[in-house]
């Protein structure tokens, strides 16, 4: 799928069965969470902008499973999958969708701005490429302190057209920072196709022009994603500087719930759906006789129970008192905002 010199090396030795089941469970959890959110949105129980990552679950599951607890993650406005795979508590994520004070951002962030200090989840950033300089700074802090940590920044293909992408990759390479940039190339920047927004559509090549190690990866194959992420992280830990992974993937749904999706060919969507990352892993596990219908049904049922509980808890959760409207504008020290 790409020229050999930039391809990710073959993935690590076959992961243990339990590990693969874990990846499958994470992907199914992300998908069911988002399907539930879409239902709640259509029923006007949750509002705002809602960007779903259905079809892209392999990237979140594959990359985030490779990170250590101390590593930092910076995400985009399409951040549900990243937050779930990072381990941000499901109840707090659902409460955030409902704008409740028990939400991971106390209802002040919503779908696009999920934050969680406990898991070093430094937010969904809704400015395209806006998270890159921020991630650069966290990596710089780790570098200056000599900490053995890395920062992972997710971006979309649209971000590669922004100046901040080029400024940040230049600086990350110049300063040799422990930064992993994961580009979810889902082929569309909002409603504009890659070929209409980029003079050169090979995004890994563009990142590599800054001296950043860059590979293109099949983003629909969670094991390929995981193999590439693991190798990149090992190399960053080994002092090889920043890495860029172009995950070639696809969103099965529109850009947001407002998007009528008139710009995509139905045949194209159907073709990508034959490469569904969840079906792909299920097929792989079944071919090895490692996944029974019972196990799959148990996973689905367990997730269903978790999500129902999260929705029930979220809807019953309190709202932040309006008296606290201006809290957190500045730090609390008795002064005026």
């Amino acid at each position, binding site marked *: 799928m790409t020229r050999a010199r930039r391809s990710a090396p073959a993935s690590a030795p076959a992961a243990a069965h339990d590990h693969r089941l874990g990846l499958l469970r994470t992907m199914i959890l992300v998908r069911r969470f988002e399907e539930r959110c879409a239902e709640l949105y259509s029923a006007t129980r949750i509002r705002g902008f809602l960007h779903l990552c259905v079809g892209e679950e392999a990237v979140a599951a594959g990359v985030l499973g490779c990170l250590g607890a101390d590593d930092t993650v910076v995400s985009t406005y399409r951040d549900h999958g990243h937050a779930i795979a990072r381990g941000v508590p499901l109840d707090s994520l659902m409460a955030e969708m409902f704008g409740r004070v028990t939400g991971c951002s106390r209802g002040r962030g919503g779908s696009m701005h999920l934050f969680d*200090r406990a898991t070093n989840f*430094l937010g969904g950033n809704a400015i395209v490429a806006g998270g890159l*300089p921020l991630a*650069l*700074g966290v990596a710089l802090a780790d570098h*200056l302190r000599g900490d053995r940590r890395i920062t992972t920044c997710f971006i979309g293909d649209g971000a590669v057209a922004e100046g901040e992408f080029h400024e940040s990759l230049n600086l990350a390479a110049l300063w040799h920072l422990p930064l992993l940039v994961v580009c979810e190339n889902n082929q569309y920047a909002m409603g504009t196709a890659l070929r209409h927004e980029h003079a050169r559509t090979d995004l890994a090549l563009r990142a590599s022009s800054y001296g950043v190690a860059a590979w293109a990866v099949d983003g629909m194959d969670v094991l390929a994603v995981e193999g590439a992420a693991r190798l990149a992280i090992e190399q960053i830990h080994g002092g090889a500087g920043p890495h860029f992974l172009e995950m070639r993937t696809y969103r099965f749904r529109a850009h947001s719930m407002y998007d009528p999706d008139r710009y995509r060919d139905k045949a194209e969507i159907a073709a990508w759906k034959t490469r569904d990352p969840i079906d792909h892993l299920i097929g792989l596990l079944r071919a090895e006789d490692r996944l029974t219908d019972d196990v799959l049904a148990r996973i689905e049922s367990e997730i269903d129970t978790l999500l129902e509980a999260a929705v029930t808890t979220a809807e019953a959760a309190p709202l932040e008192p309006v008296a606290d409207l*201006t809290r957190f504008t500045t*730090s609390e020290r008795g002064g005026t905002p």
Partner: protein
Amino acid sequence: MSSAGRPTMTYREALRAALREALREDERVFLMGEDVGAYGGCFAVSLGLLEEFGPERIRDTPLSESAFVGAGIGAAVAGLRPIVEIMTVNFSLLALDQILNNAASLLHMSGGQFNVPLVIRMTTGAGRQLAAQHSHSLEGWYAHIPGLRVVAPATVADARGMLRPALDDPDPVLFFEHGSLYNTSGPLEEDPAPVDLDHAAVRRPGGDVTLVTYGGSLPPTLEAADHLAAGGVDAEVIDLRTLRPLDDATIMDSVRRTHRVVVVDEGWRSGSLSAEVSARITEQAMYDLDGPVERVCSAEVPLPYAQHLEEAALPRPDRIVAAARRLLE
């Protein structure tokens, strides 16, 4: 040595002394920006610091305002205490997205989880014939943004004493240095106390009229006050010091004593900080006023190069004196 026996220092040297002290006392502090290292600072503020602290802590950046300001934000969130220098406020507009959408918003957007203890220094203002793209006073725009603290040291002592409290602030602080102040000098204590960033300073007490100003407009305003004094008018001069949050109490206290106000602001009049100060006086002290609030601002043009035109555009002492006299007629 001054007559008081205290050493004198330039505004530039005072800033450098404050930077050196911060770098020595806290290993989390580092300076990052355009020409801060090998060049010695665009305005020679950081001259010599590279030799003393090395390239990790006196970090030259490319001309990538958005990336290096954003990197300062990330480093602050991650526990360091970065001081980011941008050559002029005009260039900071290339980093406005990072300053507004990240620095000012992360704490609130995250429900109080992520602080941004960052200081961003930059020059502002005109008076050096640098023309439109290096001369504007846009600090009032930044003072519009909730989540930021905006300060403007106008004296040598404030240049020396404002950095430490700015670094101690758990939130982002924008630090505006007027280009015409770098060569000004004044006496300074050996070990000056930190400046209180919550309060404005009364630079000259007086009972006839209040002149409210800040930053690079303080010297012409004090000069205007001297002219007024020669004519028997006792002007009080207030230096705002902090443009956000504004210290309403000091302003209103003065207005209630003098009943007349001139606001001097090098920003453009429309939608400016002077408009905000004027509106607050109307809201809080209208019945203490003997006349409308006067404003002396920059002419509403992109600042011109030619010296006579630039001078005509700025709030010079004669314009301040004329505004004060109109109120006293």
